[in-house]
């Protein structure tokens, strides 16, 4: 965390349009437009909001008005979904410029993207597609992360994916791949605990073993979300990262293990489809906050030291 903290400190703009709003130790939710009236009506409260960057890449209108309100009153996390960092082709420079402009405009507390790709040649597939883990793809993904970080002038948090297939050509484990990316680029990590659980189930390995091998010291944010169940070709359980329901009990347990080990890391409950009324989503965030708070006292001395 110390390395990330140093990098964070160097990125504050000279003149800020918004209050600082520290995000440390907080739980948050995806920000959905339909919740804005309920959120504003509640007034000041703890918690943060995360938005998908691409939804705010229009020129103007209600999206920017809503995001300006949110950013004024709450810590904000900017989550890129479409940079295609994990793809073999060069990054879309126009898209990178849009991303950079959003980071400048809203000064988010956190900025993240995915270890995945979504564009090939000129077609955008609107899904987080998987990549093989090889020495060649490490180089290419590391170059892309460097390019993004250079453009926005700060490190990003890279999110571990949920996957449904493997590439026989892979020569590295996902955790080795991610660790090497951190080493090469200095990026932070967004640990999606639901993705860990989904991928572990789908590929028949232990989620705890994955977490054991994950560079937890570099995690700057955690994601929690709901998943759905289907069957694979053999009729066995196949989990889908659907973001359409409450967080599963098994994912809460893994989350508590991580927090017990790392202390209170900013944690987001994602809910992107079949979106419930605000009180339901808020209650999920409150459940995450309770776990963060339960483990906060053990890490307070370190926090106080870091703040002085």
């Amino acid at each position, binding site marked *: 965390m110390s390395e990330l903290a140093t990098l964070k400190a160097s990125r504050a703009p000279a003149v800020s349009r918004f209050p600082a709003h520290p995000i440390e130790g907080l739980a948050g939710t995806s920000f959905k437009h339909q919740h804005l009236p309920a959120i504003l009506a509640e007034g000041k409260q703890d918690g943060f909001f995360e938005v998908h960057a*691409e*939804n705010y*890449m*229009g*020129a*103007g*209108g*209600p*999206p*920017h*008005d809503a995001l300006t309100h949110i950013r004024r009153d709450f810590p904000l996390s900017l989550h890129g*979904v*479409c940079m*295609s960092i994990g*793809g*073999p*082709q*060069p990054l*879309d420079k126009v*898209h990178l410029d849009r991303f950079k402009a959003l980071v400048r405009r809203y000064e988010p507390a956190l900025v993240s993207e995915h270890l995945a*790709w*979504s*564009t*090939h*040649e*000129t*077609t*955008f*597939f*609107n*899904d987080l*597609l*998987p*990549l*093989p883990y090889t020495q060649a*793809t490490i180089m290419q993904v590391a170059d892309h992360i460097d390019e993004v970080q250079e453009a926005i002038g700060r490190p990003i948090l890279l999110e571990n994916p949920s996957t*449904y*297939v*493997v*590439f*026989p*050509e892979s020569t590295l484990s996902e955790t080795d791949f991610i660790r090497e990316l951190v080493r090469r680029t200095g990026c932070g990590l967004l640990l999606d605990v639901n993705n860990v659980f989904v991928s572990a189930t*789908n*590929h*028949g390995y232990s989620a705890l073993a994955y977490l054991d091998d994950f560079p937890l010291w570099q995690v700057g944010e955690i994601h929690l979300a709901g998943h759905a169940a*289907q*069957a*694979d*070709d*053999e009729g066995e359980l*196949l989990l*889908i990262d659907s973001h359409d329901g409450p967080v599963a009990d098994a994912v809460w347990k893994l989350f508590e293990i991580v927090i017990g080990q790392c202390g209170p890391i900013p944690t987001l409950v994602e809910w992107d489809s079949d979106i419930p009324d605000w009180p339901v989503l808020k209650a999920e965030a409150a459940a995450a906050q309770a776990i963060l708070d339960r483990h906060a006292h053990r890490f307070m001395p370190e926090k106080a030291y870091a703040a002085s």
Partner: protein
Amino acid sequence: MLPAESREQDFGGQSSYAAAFVPALLDPDCATPAAVAGPNGKAASKRYNIYRNNVTVSLINALAATFPATQCITGVDFFRAMARLHVRATPPKSPLLFEYGRDFPDFIELYEHARSMPWLADVARIERAWLDAYHSVDAKPLPPEVLASIPPERLADAVLTAHPATRIVRSPFPAVTIFAANRNDVTGRIEANGPEDALLTRPGLEVIVRRLPPGGAVFLLRLIAGEPLAVAAAAALADSAEFDLPANIAGMIEAGVFTAADQGA
């Protein structure tokens, strides 16, 4: 080592994992790529189908979000079948999904099962214009007093600047009435016939859709193209003998069609 220019053109090569992965995403007749597998010797068909499903369904959902009145008219099953064909034929080129669906109204116009609804494509055109107005750059509309302050003898030469949100959609069908009824869940029979022209503006945060009076579309299109007021008015009168200049000027100011007025040389 390739020269820099040709490397820029290289999308990872024809042999890349991405090139191997994508052909079957939008083509149900295409086999699961050989480059992927299940873990521990498991098969990958149903696993890969998750990606196919995510891509197709999320893009259909994107069209449904942009064209809700169109979906309301056709019903969900009809709309999704039509949208699925469009998604497969014309997937997005931009990661910004609010830019997607520009070709969808033309697709609807040619879609054989929609031939009994000849106005459907124009309703979709209004919906596409609505989303453009929604995301357009913010600007203050022309205050009424600006035009009022131009001396009467100079008014004929006045040239106006369109507000970035302004859109006009012309239809030989009552597309505005049908659009409005299906966006606002109006039930009952729609009593409208004849052509309708839609004016979309966003003077503040809300997109407003109006039906233009006779000659109104020609008048505004000429003004938006930068022609002086008198020229635009003459064109509007030629288009419709019913064209009412004062009412159209008052209407365009109230709707926020323009941001600035230049009283000419």
